[in-house]
């Protein structure tokens, strides 16, 4: 006798699916309306997509920092956006100094490398200090304690930068190296956008290789599964955790340079939004998953650039770009409703 049982409807689930489905439907209708109006030219769309990919690459690099740390300590390093900001700030001083002495013009490639190295180094240093001072004493504390600490550390780093360097916006001296456009006739791309995208891809490949093919990478995976047992295998857990933070910092530092290539300015508050969005990207791709972070970053970057124009213009909403963060955060909420473990995340009780 086949067992029969009544169908039960979960009211909450029903509401969520209605709201979520409704939002997606609205977005789709908006897109159709927008495209029907045809107010935005194909080349503008193309520019938006390229800009989105470039921005997305930056988000992806920051997202990797969240994902790596989360994979090992199961904590959201809320201050990671500030690690990024410190990298950007410090590199501004290097760039400004080099510019002052004329080195930027005389030897642009070497100058760029120096600026990049400064950003990566300082970001790494901040990340490592953060771990050592703020997080290590709380290794075994209940879950919310390190998160609150991270919020505190984030504020501290932000306002330290404000106190040290002032609250103004500083414009980044540009590199002549990456000026210009590649024009293939049917496709145009700014060289700096292309540098951003290629650099991000290269860094991500290097990281992927590192995690999967090296002894330290394997140790990182072991620590992420069980710290106690990893120690029993002869792994120096503290060192692996510091290494993880250091790698996250390096990537955030490089992201900072790529970000300044796009936006050309630094500011003490510049880490907050990219940080939150990169976290969103990490969740979107499945936190703890490296490829997921990359994909999540790209999707978010493109959505942010293309989304407001595509979904909102059709409804004749004034200045749709004001709402681009609303779209980014709505995506976060939608992902967590429909796929709490992210696109590539492993099934986990989120």
């Amino acid at each position, binding site marked *: 006798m086949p067992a029969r049982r009544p169908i039960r409807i979960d009211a909450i689930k029903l509401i969520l699916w209605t709201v979520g489905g409704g939002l997606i439907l609205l977005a789709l209708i908006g897109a159709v309306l927008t495209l029907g109006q045809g107010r935005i030219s194909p080349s503008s769309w193309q520019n938006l997509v390229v800009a989105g990919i470039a921005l997305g690459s930056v988000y992806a690099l920051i997202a990797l920092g969240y994902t790596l740390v989360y994979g090992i300590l199961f904590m959201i390093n809320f201050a990671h956006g500030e690690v990024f900001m410190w990298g950007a700030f410090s590199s501004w001083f290097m760039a400004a100094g080099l510019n002052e002495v004329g080195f930027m013009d005389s030897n642009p490639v070497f100058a760029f490398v120096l600026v990049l190295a400064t950003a990566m180094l300082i970001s790494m240093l901040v990340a490592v200090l953060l771990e050592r001072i703020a997080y290590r004493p709380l290794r075994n504390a209940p879950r919310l304690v390190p998160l609150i600490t991270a919020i505190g550390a984030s504020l501290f780093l932000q306002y330290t930068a404000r106190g040290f360097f002032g609250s103004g916006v500083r414009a980044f001296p540009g590199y002549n190296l990456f000026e210009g456009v590649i024009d293939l006739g049917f496709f145009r791309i700014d060289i700096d956008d292309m540098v951003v995208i290629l650099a991000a891809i290269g860094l991500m490949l290097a990281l992927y290789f590192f995690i999967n093919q090296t*002894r330290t990478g*394997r*140790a990182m*995976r*072991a620590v992420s*599964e*069980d710290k*106690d*047992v*990893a*120690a*029993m*295998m*002869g*792994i*120096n*857990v503290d060192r692996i955790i510091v290494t993880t933070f250091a790698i996250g910092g390096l990537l955030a530092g490089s992201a900072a340079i790529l970000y300044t290539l796009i936006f050309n300015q630094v500011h003490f508050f510049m880490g907050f939004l990219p940080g939150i969005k990169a976290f969103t990207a990490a969740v979107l791709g499945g936190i703890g998953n490296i490829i997921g972070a990359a994909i999540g970053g790209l999707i978010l970057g493109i959505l942010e650039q293309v989304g407001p124009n595509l979904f909102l213009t059709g409804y004749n909403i004034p200045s749709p770009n004001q709402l681009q963060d609303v779209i980014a955060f709505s995506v976060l909420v939608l992902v967590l409703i429909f796929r709490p473990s992210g696109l590539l995340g*492993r099934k986990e009780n989120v």
Partner: protein
Amino acid sequence: MTDTTATTVDPRPDHTGAGHRGDTLLELEDVHVFYGNIEALKGISLNVARGEIVTLIGSNGAGKSTTLRAISGTHRPRSGSIRLAGSAIHNLPPHEIVSKGIAHSPEGRKVFSRMSVFENLQMGAFSRHGERIDDDVARVFDLFPRLRERRSQKAGTMSGGEQQMLAMGRALMARPSILLLDEPSMGLSPILTEQIFKIIEEINAQGTTVLLVEQNALMALNAAHRGYVIQTGRIILADTAANLAANEQVRQAYLGEI
């Protein structure tokens, strides 16, 4: 911190002839361990000679696992000394203790479930920088033929018994001079428990010293040369396994004979 470097001999009658195989390999002296303010070990002293199987029996909460964790450095003792082949190890971090030759197979198996069987064995050999490990893998596969079949399977998808085998095999990959086994029979069927104990004896016969913690006191005393009874953080009895198994109080308390 008080440093007790005096070489006092354990006053307890544990060198009772028959069980004593060789020179002392591992020696704990007056080890105190705390969890917060709670004293979990209240001065444990014991020793293990080269080539022996020594078992530590006692009820849950007596401090058996804590003793093993103190030895492998995963929970540092507040005072007392632990020596391996004469040199103090109680101030070393766990990863250095492993490379000195102590491997710990933890309670509840704790295999790396997202890694393959082979990768788990690789992790076991982590402390041996860059050496070739093929021979050791082959040796583990000989001991546990089941693992050879599952070489590239993810460890998390295996049954409890297979995971226990993997945990033991992983610990052996460090080529330890002494193997700490925590509750290898936990959650296994009686039939598998018997198999595991046979393998423990085989490992020992191949030259590895074993310190075994078990709930299943009967099986443990059958396999071991000597045993210690631990209760509320103190060692209350130490004798040869045969004598312990014959001891009236032990029979009542741990073998369940009333």
